[in-house]
Each structure stands twice: as C-alpha cells, then as structure tokens.
C-alpha cells in the first residue's frame, strides 16, 4: 500500500522552514526518505527504523511516530539546494529483497 504524503507541493523563500508528512494505513516498521532534483536520480536522505526515532542530515531532520503510522521531514532554514521532490517510502521484505513503496512525492520549490 502506497504511503500518502502531504502537502503535494510547497513553495518557500530561502531561509523558511517546511514540514513534509508521510502517513500509512498499514503498520510502519521503517520509513525511508529520498530527494530527487529535477532530471536527476532519487538520492537517499535517511532511514528511520523505530518509533520516535529522529535523524538529521544537514539541516534536514525527520521523526517517526509508529503509533500514528506517520513520519515527518523537517527542513530548517531552507537553502536553494533543497529544491526538489521529496519521497517517503515504506519497506518490507519480499522473498529476500527489500520492496520499497514510495509515496507520491512532495515538490519543494525554494525561491531566493
């Protein structure tokens, strides 16, 4: 089942903060976050493995609430380089390989 992201798009000025949410109707065991810049490949940001865990990457951090089956990505003091589409993904094993199912993406635009 595909996780649901919100909002679908965000437009910010440089230096502003943003929050991207990811929720699932099924139990979450791990949440993966990726960023894809226009015309490029998705790039790994972080994985959150257990409830309540928070991780950080540059000024980007994330939290994971297992009970609510949600994860949120926080972008603080956004920079122009943060522009792109952010995907969350939920993973499960399928016959020995990781099946990562992505949300529909959140497009983040940072303006100077």
């Amino acid at each position, binding site marked *: 089942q595909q996780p649901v992201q919100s909002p679908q798009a965000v437009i910010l000025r440089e230096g502003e903060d943003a929050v991207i949410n990811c929720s699932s109707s099924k139990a979450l*065991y*791990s949440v*993966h976050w*990726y960023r*894809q810049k226009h015309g*490029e*490949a*998705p*790039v*790994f940001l972080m*994985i959150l*493995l257990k409830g309540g865990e928070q991780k950080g990457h540059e000024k980007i951090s994330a939290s994971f609430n297992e009970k609510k089956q949600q994860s949120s990505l926080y972008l603080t003091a956004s920079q122009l380089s943060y522009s792109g*589409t952010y*995907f969350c993904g939920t*993973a*499960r*094993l*399928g*016959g*020995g*390989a*990781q*099946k*990562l*199912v*992505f949300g*529909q*993406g959140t*497009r983040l635009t940072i303006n100077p």
Partner: protein
Amino acid sequence: DTAVSQTPKYLVTQMGNDKSIKCEQNLGHDTMYWYKQDSKKFLKIMFSYNNKELIINETVPNRFSPKSPDKAHLNLHINSLELGDSAVYFCASSQVPNSDNEKLFFGSGTQLSVL
C-alpha cells in the same frame, strides 16, 4: 566513477518496437532493482534481483523481461512497446539482501519515449 550507470539516457522509439536498457553497478552490491517513474513522478518498483536471481516481480506485463547475467548487471528488455510504456526507468542497487533498511543507490535514469 559512477556507482550505478544506465544506458542509454534517452530512448525514443516507435510503438511496437523492442528495446533494451542496460544497468551496471560497481558497488559490489548483491541486489539490483528496476523502478518506473511515470509522468506524475510516481516511482514504482518493477523487479528485484538478488545475485542474479529474480526475487520481486510486481504486476508488470510479460512484455518486460529483466535479465541479470551477473550480480553487477541488470538489463531490461521491453517487447512490443506501447505508448503507456513512456516513462523514466531507474535502475538501483542495495548492499544487503534480506533487509528492509537498506539505502538504494539509483542510476541516472533512462527516459523512454514511445511515439
């Protein structure tokens, strides 16, 4: 050195043709994947191979046939191309099988346009 490389980067072809996309990874990973990203940016898994063995096969038409000659290579052959096959196809790899917390390394993608 590029970690996961795909060729070609762009592929423009007519309906009904057969085409292949090649992928190679030099990371020493055991698991490779094909993902399809449609025009709405929806990124969906198609196949996964673990050390040359097909592990995940999502509901993909039989016209799509992956082949892994060795664990560093995963190719995708598409027969009788249709308009709906137009998308960006990403190859990816991950290090450890039997794990649901592995980061994926993606190739730069192949933009397929079927006319």
